[in-house]
């Protein structure tokens, strides 16, 4: 009798995660096989044991406390009775799903004095076949044995001493591991890389700023493309039929000074569609040409196939840091819609081709320029969710402005290359709301207001529920149709991670990272 669970555990650890299994992740809702749940990144679970009627009975099943003190931003993976996640700065832990007890851990020594603008964080791991992959804050990509956590290979992606770092979860596609990077506050030249999952050899690199002779290089004055940023620090999505990767790119460098980089500054603040085999650019859409407000477009591209304005289309939905919700045709890149979903003043509008009409009053100045949203954005890396059941796009919107004062920004390797300091607007308290947008029009159907601008991701489920959290540590469930609060739990620490749902022993659970804990809830 007592041997049975052990045997099951051994069997589970031997199971594989081939690419075909990730392709069909939607048909396996008991697992969570990739960062955003599926390649479409809808963060929608078809599990429906937890419903509007019984969610009030959710109780904590177990919790796990991480070792470090940095922000815990990870989304876990759940594969065959094991949960895998990264702990900040760059560790990986595997837990037994039934008990929450550790099976192995990978602890990385991080060099002292790391140059990382916004915390030594990590948002998750990828799994493929018998390996787990993590990007590290010192800009390496590491492959671990999925059974033991032992290092299979460890390659340098870039030099951390010049301000490169890796914070996003990798994405496993076919036989490759796609990994983004950060560092656009230090004047790096951004890129997106693919590595052979078996050998760790680099298969391709897409540069965020085109070099001389390449299309788009003319959108940078002089040599400014060399320090032009356009990093790739949030995990993208993948359309297997089109064989296209969709990835957001970050701000141009320096963040707040445009006159040293005249032009549109491609491919900063873009959504790029890349051939997954070669990394070649199929199309791009630039949300903010010549950005001077640090409006990285490092958000989650959500892929949806639906009838749009009378005809079936393959869409990508994108709630941007700049305060607008966009719909594009994901095969052609055609701009279809932009709708404001949060307060903004940087654009006077969006023209019919999707190009913003900039407001010169929001250019950072010595006297100070008031900008909405602030440079933490109306949206940011925290994941939205799309429910095919309600046809709503759920986004945690941040409502806060700031005043930007221009400073100097001389480029030196490894030093901050930003060009402004920020002050709060006196007397203004930021706030936020989980907003349900009609996915095809961007019209707001309802909102659930929260005290502080949120950093939590969102999960929607077939139980007609939406899960999310607050900076004060409340983890909550709303009615997916109305936004009515149905359940909440104070977790004791800020939530800057995305919830997931999975099955363990046939029962549905919801997991969330909060403070320095990973918490798992199920019906009692």
């Amino acid at each position, binding site marked *: 009798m007592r041997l049975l669970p052990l045997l099951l555990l051994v069997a589970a650890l031997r199971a594989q995660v081939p690419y075909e299994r990730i392709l069909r992740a939607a048909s396996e809702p008991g697992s969570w096989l990739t960062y955003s749940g599926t390649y479409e990144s809808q963060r929608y679970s078809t599990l429906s044991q937890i419903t509007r009627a019984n969610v009030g009975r959710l109780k904590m099943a177990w919790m796990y406390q991480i070792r470090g003190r940095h922000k815990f931003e990870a989304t876990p993976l759940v594969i065959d009775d094991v949960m895998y996640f990264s702990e900040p700065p760059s560790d990986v832990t595997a837990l037994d799903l039934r008990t929450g007890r550790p099976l192995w851990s990978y602890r990385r020594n991080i060099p002292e*004095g790391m*140059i990382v*603008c916004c915390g030594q964080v990590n948002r998750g791991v990828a799994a493929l076949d018998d390996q787990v992959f993590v990007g590290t804050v010192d800009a390496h990509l590491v492959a671990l044995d999925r059974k033991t956590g032992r290092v299979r290979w460890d390659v340098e992606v870039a030099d951390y001493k010049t301000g490169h770092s890796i914070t996003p979860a990798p994405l496993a596609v076919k036989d490759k591991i796609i990994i983004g990077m950060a560092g656009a506050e230090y004047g790096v030249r951004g890129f997106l890389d693919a590595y052979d999952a078996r050998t760790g050899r680099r298969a391709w690199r897409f540069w965020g700023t085109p070099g001389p002779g390449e299309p788009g290089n003319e959108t940078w004055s002089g040599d400014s493309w060399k320090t032009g940023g356009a990093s790739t620090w949030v995990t993208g999505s993948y359309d297997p039929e089109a064989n296209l990767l969709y990835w957001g790119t970050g701000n141009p460098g320096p*963040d707040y000074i445009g006159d040293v980089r005249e032009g549109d500054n491609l491919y900063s603040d873009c959504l790029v569609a890349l051939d997954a085999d070669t990394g070649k650019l199929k199309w791009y859409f630039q949300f903010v040409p010549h950005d001077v407000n640090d409006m990285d477009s490092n958000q989650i591209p959500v892929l949806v196939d639906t009838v749009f304005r009378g005809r079936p289309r393959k869409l990508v939905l994108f709630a941007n840091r700049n305060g607008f919700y966009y719909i594009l045709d994901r095969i052609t890149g055609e701009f279809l819609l932009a709708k404001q979903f949060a307060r903004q003043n940087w654009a006077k509008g969006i023209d019919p081709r999707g190009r913003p009409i900039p407001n010169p009053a929001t250019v950072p100045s010595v006297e100070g320029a008031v900008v909405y949203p602030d440079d933490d954005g109306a949206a940011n890396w925290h994941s939205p969710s799309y429910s095919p059941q309600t046809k709503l796009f759920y986004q945690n919107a941040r409502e806060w402005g700031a005043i930007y004062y221009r*400073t100097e920004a*001389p480029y030196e390797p490894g030093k901050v290359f930003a060009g402004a*300091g920020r002050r709060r607007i006196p007397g203004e308290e930021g706030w936020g709301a989980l907003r349900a947008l009609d996915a095809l029009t961007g019209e707001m159907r309802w909102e659930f207001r929260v*005290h502080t601008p949120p950093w939590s991701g969102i999960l929607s489920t077939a139980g007609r529920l939406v899960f999310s959290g607050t900076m004060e540590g*409340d983890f909550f469930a709303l009615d997916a149709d109305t936004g009515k609060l149905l359940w*909440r739990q104070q977790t004791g620490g800020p939530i800057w991670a995305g919830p997931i749902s999975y099955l363990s022993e046939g029962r549905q659970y919801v997991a969330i990272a909060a403070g320095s804990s990973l918490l798992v809830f199920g019906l009692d």
Partner: protein
Amino acid sequence: MIKATLFLLAGAVAWGQATPDGLAQGERLFGSQCAYCHGPRGDGGRGANLAVPRLRHAADDAALVQAISRGIPGTGMPGSALSARQARQVAAFVRTLGRVETEALSGDAARGRWVFEGKGACGRCHTIAGRGGGLGPDLTDAGARSSPQYLREALLDPEKEVPGGFLQVRVVTGDGRRITGVRVNEDTFSLQLRDLSDQVHSFWKRELTEIHKDQGKSPMPAYRSLLAPAEVEDLVAYLVSLQ
């Protein structure tokens, strides 16, 4: 304002590099390297408020230089690629942020203490060295944190610049009670406040029928009408003596 004080203070800064030129260089470096998080005046934002006399993670100048160079483990403060000399210049500049301007005072600190404890009844709301009320800011080191001019204005016109973290709130409870106080904490679902008699109340927001946040308002009376000008100056002298 910062620049005006730099030259006065340069001679007092312990670092050999803290010449006027070194400080100006430190200020420039602060603008390009630190203001992104700490704000152009160093009074915080994403990063900590550095415009204070004592820095929590940098008890002395060596610790401050180390924090600038290597970052502060477990916090968002990263390391930097600044040279050792540049780090010292930035440190010298950061030390000036927390220094307050001084002026010749006409008041008498001993008499001011008498006003504080007597006619002013300041201890009802303010703490000095662990004694007093909790409604207003702790004044134990008021003289180290605030200039005489700021303290004078705070006494005469408390609503001119309400200190951060002291938001006045007024609530009405479901059973009709009206309570005014200073916000202790708040989240999406609850609110905690300290009322004018120093009692802490905690409410679920659903229990309240009204919540008013009085930005720019202060429960502190304007002492312009309560104290004679000389008494105000004595009180300022006493507060300045609290270091």
